[in-house]
């Protein structure tokens, strides 16, 4: 396989196998896992064949029974989401959200690079179950290898009769269209993704309507599903919902992919059992991350992508179970764990994340457009040693305009700080604005002394001094 310009593409790195059941990463060990030949040789397209022998309603209820939670961030059950399509309205579309860009997250990229046919089969099953006439596969602009492999897989699948007219000689026909993003984080938000797909600026749509399932792409009912969510479907159809729910817990069945980055011995993407695996299992077990690098102490970790409030070692024994993480003040989000050890400069780490979200604001809502860059400027001042004690409160005050009321955070038992449960309130349309505040809020709440150290010795500005500064 060669890439653009003939340069050889190395086997996409990042996946680390372990001994948990493998649903979506089953083929990752093969050198040629992304080819149609390998896919067919390892049971590929069997789920689709099974689905086509049932009625769409039966397929839909199978998925509903599996309680397949969305893997994109919100964790909404896919089977329930499908049911939001208003009956009798056609055409309706499937949009695959492959615009994975949450800091720390790189699991969907591996799924698209290493097993594109599994995703395609999942799309076909979803289209069959919900009666979707067309599927749009939106792949993030920067993911060149994923784009090439998905494109190749689509062509092969078309030639083999898996996509197109009368799939596998049935009455079922569907087209899958590949679309490349243009590089905007906010397009991971489903309505912004739809806008981008329509050729408009990638800006979130206003709610209501709350779900694109009612009014989505081109004003039609649209299901937007994440890559990993859809990649689960072939397995569920082949093995049944019962086999799926036998893994994990009742409310979070199956496995899920997590991407670990930062100060662990072995960062990478892991497929773990949903609901039961704890953060300690993931970060410290020998078969997974193998502990913190250099035998350092863990300082903090982000449990669900860059926009999630942070956890400390006190939360290590929590399992990957949304209903337990929320009350503890964070979210599982996109399954990205960013690990910070004792050497981490916490204010600087927060600045890295805030800078990203401030930069990625689409510019639509004032709180995000103006508040994000302002927060970044204040934090940069503090990191550079130019902040004042007053600036620490200012960060909270500015954040308050983006997220009014109590912002969720983890408990700090040593200091008697209790957890504030998820979610937050916001004055913006989407969560990009709050995401710029989330790292600052966590860092400042959990590690205030590190900020105080940075501003120690600096005097507060008075109003007169401010005037002179300007």
């Amino acid at each position: 396989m060669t890439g653009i310009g003939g340069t050889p593409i190395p086997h996409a790195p990042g996946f680390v196998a372990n001994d948990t059941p493998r649903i979506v990463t089953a083929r990752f060990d093969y050198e040629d896992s992304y080819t149609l030949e390998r896919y067919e040789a390892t049971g590929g397209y069997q789920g689709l064949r099974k689905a086509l022998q049932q009625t769409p309603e039966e397929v839909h209820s199978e998925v509903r029974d599996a309680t397949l939670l969305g893997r994109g961030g919100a964790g909404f059950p896919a089977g329930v989401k499908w049911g939001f399509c208003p009956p009798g309205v056609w055409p309706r579309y499937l949009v695959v959200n492959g615009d994975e860009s949450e800091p720390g997250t790189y699991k969907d990229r591996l799924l698209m690079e290493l097993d594109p046919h599994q995703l395609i089969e999942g799309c076909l099953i979803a289209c069959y179950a919900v009666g979707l006439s067309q599927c749009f596969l939106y792949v993030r602009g920067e993911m060149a290898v994923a784009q090439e492999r998905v494109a190749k897989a689509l062509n092969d699948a078309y030639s083999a009769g898996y996509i197109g007219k009368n799939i596998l000689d049935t009455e079922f026909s569907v087209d899958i269209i590949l679309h490349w993003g243009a590089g905007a984080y906010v397009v991971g938000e489903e309505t912004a993704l739809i806008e981008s797909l329509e050729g408009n600026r990638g800006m979130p749509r206003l709610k209501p309507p709350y779900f694109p399932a009612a009014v989505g792409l081109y004003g039609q009912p649209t299901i937007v599903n994440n890559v990993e969510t859809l990649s689960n479907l072939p397995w569920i159809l082949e093995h049944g919902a019962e086999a799926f729910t036998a893994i994990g817990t009742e409310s979070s069945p199956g496995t899920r992919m997590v991407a670990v980055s930062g100060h662990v011995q072995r960062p990478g993407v892991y497929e773990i059992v949903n609901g039961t695996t704890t953060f300690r299992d993931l970060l410290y077990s020998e078969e997974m991350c193998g502990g913190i690098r250099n035998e350092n102490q863990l300082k903090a970790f982000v449990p669900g992508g860059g926009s999630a409030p942070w956890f400390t070692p006190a939360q290590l024994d929590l399992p990957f179970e949304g209903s337990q993480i929320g009350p503890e003040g964070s979210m599982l989000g996109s399954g990205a764990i960013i690990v910070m050890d004792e050497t981490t400069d916490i204010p600087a780490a927060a600045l890295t994340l805030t800078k990203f979200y401030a930069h990625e604001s689409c510019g639509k809502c004032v709180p995000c457009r103006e508040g994000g860059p302002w927060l970044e400027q204040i934090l940069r001042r503090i990191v550079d040693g130019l902040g004042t004690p007053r600036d620490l409160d200012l960060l909270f005050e500015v954040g308050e305009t983006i997220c009014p009321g109590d912002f969720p955070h983890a408990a700090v038992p040593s200091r008697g700080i209790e957890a504030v449960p998820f979610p937050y309130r916001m004055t913006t349309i989407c969560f990009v604005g709050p995401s710029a505040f989330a790292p600052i809020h966590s860092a400042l709440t959990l590690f205030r002394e590190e900020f105080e150290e940075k501003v120690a010795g600096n005097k507060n500005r008075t109003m007169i001094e401010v005037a002179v500064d300007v």
Partner: protein
Amino acid sequence: MSDTPPSEVTVTINGDEFEARPGEMLIAAADRAGVHIPRFCYHERMSSVGMCRMCLVDIDTGRGPMLQPSCMVPVAEGMVVDTQSEETKRAQEGILEFLLVNHPLDCPVCDKGGECPLQDQTMAYGPGESRFVEEKRHYEKPIPISDLVDLDRERCILCDRCTRFADEIAGDPLIQFTERGSSTQVLTFPDEPFSSYFSGNTVQICPVGALTAAPYRFKARPWDLEQVESTCTTCSVGCRVAVESSRNQLVRYLGVDVESVNHGWLCDKGRFDYEAVNSGDRLVTPLVRDDHDQHQLLGTDWGSALARAAEAIEQAGPQRVGIIGGSRLTNEDAYAWAKLARSVIGTDNVDAQLGDGLPADVVLGLPTATIAETCEADTVLIVGPDLKEELPILHLRLRVAATKGQTKVIEIGPIVTGAETYAQRSISCRSGEAAKTLVALLESDDPLGDQLRDGSVVAVLGRASMAESATPALEVASVIRDRLPHATFLLALRRGNVRGALDMGLAPGILPGRTTIDDPSESLINRWQNLPEKAGLDTTAMLQAAATGELDTLILLGADPLRDFPDRNLAMDAFRQVKTVIAIDNFVTESVSHADVVMPSTAYGEQEGTTTNIEGRVSRLAQKITPPGSTRDDWMIAAELAWRLGGDLGVGSREEIWGEIEQVAPSHAGVTIERICGPEAHEGILIQGSSVNPKLVTPQEPPVVDGYGLRLVSGRKLWDAGTGVSHSPSLRHLAEEPTLKVHPGDLQRLGVPSGTAVRVISTRTTETLLAVADDTILRGTAVLPFNQPGGGANRFIDATALVNDIRIETL
């Protein structure tokens, strides 16, 4: 409108229950309930975008109060709203602080300062001080985005109002957001200015000083402005407008939102042509032809000018006087002149139109639709001029209605018009063949035929080309009356108060109140005493009579036949032959320069009165500034002349004139001066009903274009050589020199490359013009704008011909 009242939704706003309309946004309901919710991006005439977040209020729909944008949340039964809660206040303070983070505090030199929503709402809802100490965003300022609009990106708060207006309302999406996040900017596309006929509206709706109008920039401060509400008379749509002055100079017009007419929008010509009123070129003193040097007009006093005019009228005798023009006048002025002509001079040779409209009996006699009815009709059939060029706000209303799906527009005509972008179907036909085309459509099995027969239809009817006579339009009216009897009409006449002038009797055979000379009202006979026996001549007939020596005195009432009459040669012949030309005008136009007596009249903004728009809606004109020099109102000139001719108009003020109109004009009975000055004046008073019968003509076969000829089509452009544009320094350069546009195939056939000068030959003249290839032009057709600087199309036109053909030769 359905008879059943719409059901209501009860919402509680700040403790008070309010019956809201189902489906309306909370912010609109709150407005009607008298509760102001601050906002920047929300605009009641455009879709909501929820960008600024300024209208966040506490909304409780049963799940506890939550901050939600009131421009995005439709009212719901039982909704409880608190616009003054602590949370709301904190959000408002926060949003304003954010908006000011990058907004330059250059209010003292900003045009908007003093009337700025950002300034005002910061005072009312803001935090009082900012905690922002960093460097603000910087851009080059200002940058021109069109000839009339400057953009200061530092001041912009990205509310999406201007960009939404350009896209949703004007249909000229030439300004867009570029970049992202805090670097987002409004910009034009490279090398494509925001050259929209409606660009000035973006300045008016800009909630900060980011968009400023070049003609107004740095001219005044808002607190120095005085304002009156009036009606625009630039064209005959009759947009309501706020006229503003400073130091007795008109400095700005703003659109006033009235439901029936303009929804708050104005075209750029109507918005900026106040510069002409302020112009130093204005006529401010009477002039008379120098006895010693026939090429000179000398300043004189009113007494001498009036005496000379009266003498010329008297010497000619009633049958040899003609009065041309009057569409510029107010209703009261037009009435005074109609009365002067008939009861004092004794002539019926009066015509407010310049051979460029439709016969008065047709205008007054066809059943009229309102603009609102037009925008709600199942189908609008446009057979007439390019509305975008001639009646821009009617075009805008139709465009919005059609794009929202409220109506469907079908147009039949010889050129691509502004309606093409929103029309359900644009049917091309050769000039003069619209009636034939409509018949063919109705007789075909095209589904449009059934659509026209089965649904409500409003025909927007007018002259598609000045190079064809009124007959083709009358043929279309005849076909519609015949085959679509349920259709009503909105007549696309352009001149400011043409409808009012006809209503007041400034047309041969027509008397005030939409009656004819054969059937005058009792009260009119009592008041006027004398009436001519039979109908007089229209403008074409008057000019013909003058050219053959049958008229001695021509009176031009704000008329410039040399530029505006379709047949320049005929007008020129008439001027050469006639003994005396008396002109009453604001400027020395080309025709006025041929006059023997010139009397300066007051202009727009300098006179009170009423005007009537194309629907027949009477609305008030307000005086804002003192007229310059010794200019006089047109009715006063009529009264003075009457007195010098031994008569008496019997009126001493505009109020008295309106009182008489109300008594003698049957259609205007009951429209008292109290009503005109009352609250109804805001929307205007629609006057319906007429006792005039339209005389239509049955379609005839137009002459075939010979193999060497091209059928000439000539329409007006918004930016033309008219006085309003040519005396406004900001607008003058927008009027393009005329070029002859021909289909590239026709040019190729003649062996002429595009952009070369060619000899253009018509029955009237042979002249040199630039020929330009344009593939939107029908084959066999040549398009030449009617009145552009550098020469009008009327040089080539024979007004007596049904259609005009030209030939092109290489030089």
